[in-house]
């Protein structure tokens, strides 16, 4: 069955047309990733209008190519110019740029390119292995559980996305609210339309995403008149040959770093709201801590390139896992992919892999193929990717804004969507300026309907609202949501040395054990026991006197 689906998916992806779109997509992603200020999410969201006319598998393969290219594009600029193309490759510059300046740019690029490839491939394998398993678990979810899962995703995103949790939560709630404008999906009653036909039809959520991301980001990029007119980089020797053989030998020698960093990336990707920007720093930090020569980090240590580049490419496999298994995106780019699926009338959820196996496997195959395409393109088109960093930001911004209007119009052939782009561009810009993170808002916009639909279904089945916190899975998500909401406060208090913070992790483990026990079966009570043991051990450590 698996092999049949795989063969059918291969037939979908391995057409000349799809491969050509994937090559174009990966090139576009690599270019976007090379340009500081041009985010991967922006590249993926701008690709969306091109995919409407394509069959779903082809459209998704194109978008996945942009995503994979974007994750890898940042390393070129980062290593050769010291300016990371994307936040996902910030840590790559710590050792990549010094290594390049020491006269080994070809080796540094080789390490980056092959680490990206390994990270992508490892996470692709884990995605194929874990997504169907997670979907099996997802089949147990009832509307109460799905509703709490959305609340959990929003809370975690809010707590990770910015310095101020309240601002993150408000942003998430504004996203949910934006989705309520227009006709109610269940009964078709107009909400907040104030007599306007434009508001009655509701905001097209792709136009909202492009406005929030692309428009507001470009406004921020050109805000400073001096910086807007400067080339992004004047540096960068483009007459370099990537040292593939030496880089592969180095990676094989340091395979532990590769595996560990890929797992960090995968896990970070699964967490809603935590993406490549967190994963690359975490993996770099872990590599430095585990190294026998930590003092050489920052001066061109190969592990300082391997760790961040492996982890940031592994992130996407992680963020695609909950999307494909549960219909809940792990990050903003996965949220845009969810949008692409919804445009084709495909609603991802626990039954997605079982009901749409060819499409699901096409996503897996596209993810693998995109990594190979990325490897080939990065090696062959290095010169182009570095030259693109010499473009002036204002030129890029003007052209992309015009492109965004054409793309947004093509969503529904409606100029109303252009106004949505404008208003949400303004809103996103002001929110950025006022310190509100946009990631929770994006997730709110994307998941607003899922939350309302499941709330409605749950209350139709049973009006008892305590079920939202007493059903085992709902309780599990509720507990994790509460602890993740408290996490920023916990961090601040821990820095002040407050004693109670030592009991935060044991308390979370002990609380999470309760729903696991209630779930029954054989494995989960055992997991609950392990969680309780870990909680006990951590408590014992917290109570033990500390050495002076």
């Amino acid at each position, binding site marked *: 069955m698996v092999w049949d689906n795989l063969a059918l998916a291969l037939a979908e992806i391995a057409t000349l047309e799809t491969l050509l779109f994937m090559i174009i997509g990966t090139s576009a992603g690599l270019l976007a990733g090379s340009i500081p200020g041009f985010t991967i999410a922006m590249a993926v969201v701008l690709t969306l209008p091109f995919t409407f006319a394509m069959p779903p598998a082809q459209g998704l393969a194109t978008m996945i190519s942009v995503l994979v290219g974007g994750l890898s594009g940042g390393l070129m600029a980062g290593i050769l110019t010291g300016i990371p193309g994307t936040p996902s490759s910030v840590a790559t510059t710590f050792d990549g740029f010094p290594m390049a300046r020491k006269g080994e740019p070809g080796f540094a690029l080789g390490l980056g390119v092959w680490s990206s490839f390994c990270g992508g491939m490892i996470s692709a394998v884990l995605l194929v292995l874990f997504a169907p398993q997670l979907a099996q678990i997802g089949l147990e979810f009832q509307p109460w559980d799905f509703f709490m899962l959305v609340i959990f995703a929003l809370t975690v995103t809010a707590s990770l996305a910015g310095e101020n949790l*309240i601002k993150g939560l*408000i942003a998430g709630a504004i996203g949910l609210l934006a989705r309520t404008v227009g006709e109610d999906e269940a*009964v078709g*009653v107009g909400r907040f339309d*104030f007599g306007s036909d434009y508001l009655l039809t509701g905001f097209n959520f792709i136009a909202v995403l492009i406005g929030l991301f692309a428009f507001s980001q470009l406004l921020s990029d050109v805000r400073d008149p001096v910086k807007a007119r400067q080339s992004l980089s004047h540096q960068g020797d483009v007459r370099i040959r990537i040292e593939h053989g030496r880089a592969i030998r180095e990676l094989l020698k340091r395979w532990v770093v590769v595996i560990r960093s890929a797992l960090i990336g995968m896990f970070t990707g699964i967490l809603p709201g935590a993406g490549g920007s967190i994963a690359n720093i975490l993996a770099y930090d872990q590599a430095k801590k585990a190294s026998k020569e930590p003092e050489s980090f920052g001066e061109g240590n190969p592990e300082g390139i391997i760790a961040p580049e492996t982890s940031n490419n592994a992130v996407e496999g992680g963020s695609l896992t909950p999307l494909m298994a549960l219909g809940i995106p792990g990050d903003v780019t996965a949220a845009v992919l969810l949008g692409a699926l919804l445009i084709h009338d495909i609603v991802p959820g626990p039954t997605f892999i079982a009901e749409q196996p060819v499409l699901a496997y096409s996503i897996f195959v596209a993810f693998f193929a995109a990594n190979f395409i990325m490897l080939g393109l990065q090696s062959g088109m290095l010169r182009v990717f570095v030259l693109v960093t010499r473009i002036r930001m204002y*030129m890029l911004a*003007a052209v992309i804004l015009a492109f965004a209007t*054409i793309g947004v119009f*093509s969503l529904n052939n409606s*100029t109303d969507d252009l106004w949505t782009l404008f208003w949400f561009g303004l809103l996103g810009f002001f929110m950025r300026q006022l310190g509100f993170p946009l990631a929770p808002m994006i997730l709110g916009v994307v998941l607003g309907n899922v939350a309302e639909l499941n709330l409605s279904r749950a209350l139709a089945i049973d009006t008892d609202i305590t079920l939202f916190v007493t059903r085992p899975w709902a309780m599990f998500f509720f507990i994790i949501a509460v602890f993740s909401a408290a996490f920023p406060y916990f961090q601040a208090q821990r820095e002040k040395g407050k004693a109670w913070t030592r009991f935060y992790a044991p308390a979370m483990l002990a609380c999470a054990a309760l729903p696991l026990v209630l779930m029954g079966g054989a494995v989960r009570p055992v997991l609950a026991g392990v969680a309780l043991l870990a909680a006990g051990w951590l408590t014992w450590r917290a109570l033990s006197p500390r050495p002076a």
Partner: protein
Amino acid sequence: MSLNRDAWVAIALLLIAGGLMVASFDIREPDYGQLSPAAWPRVILGAILAMGVIYLIQSLRSGADEPAPDGPKGARAFVAHWRNVLWVFALFLGYLLALPYIGMLIGAMAFVFLLLTALGGIGRTPIHLALALVSVGGMWALFTYALGVLLPTGSLTGI
């Protein structure tokens, strides 16, 4: 007592959320369906109001904003600081308003050229003109001929 920026934002947020909460009572209540169409928006608005109050308290406790660095102040300084952003807003708004009359091809070309000139100066006019014509022309052709999208035509220009 002078309020800091966050406090003003919190007050504005509370006022808007409060206004929408009042507006939610105008949402028609049908006789069918388990969940009232107004219920979910009210849950969200309730959460926004509660978080808005916490945000306001946080803002009030954090004290006044740090004084702005020395330099020109007033409307002229404000315009100078936000010059590029205001150009983008104004030109984009003009583009949207003119769209029904001049169409997307000419409108987008004019928008890109004017924006490039406003942000990059008039010294590079030939480059800006070429960039506007080639980029918008290329995208317009791609969407019109390759993707089969009928982009808006202008009532005055016919294209």
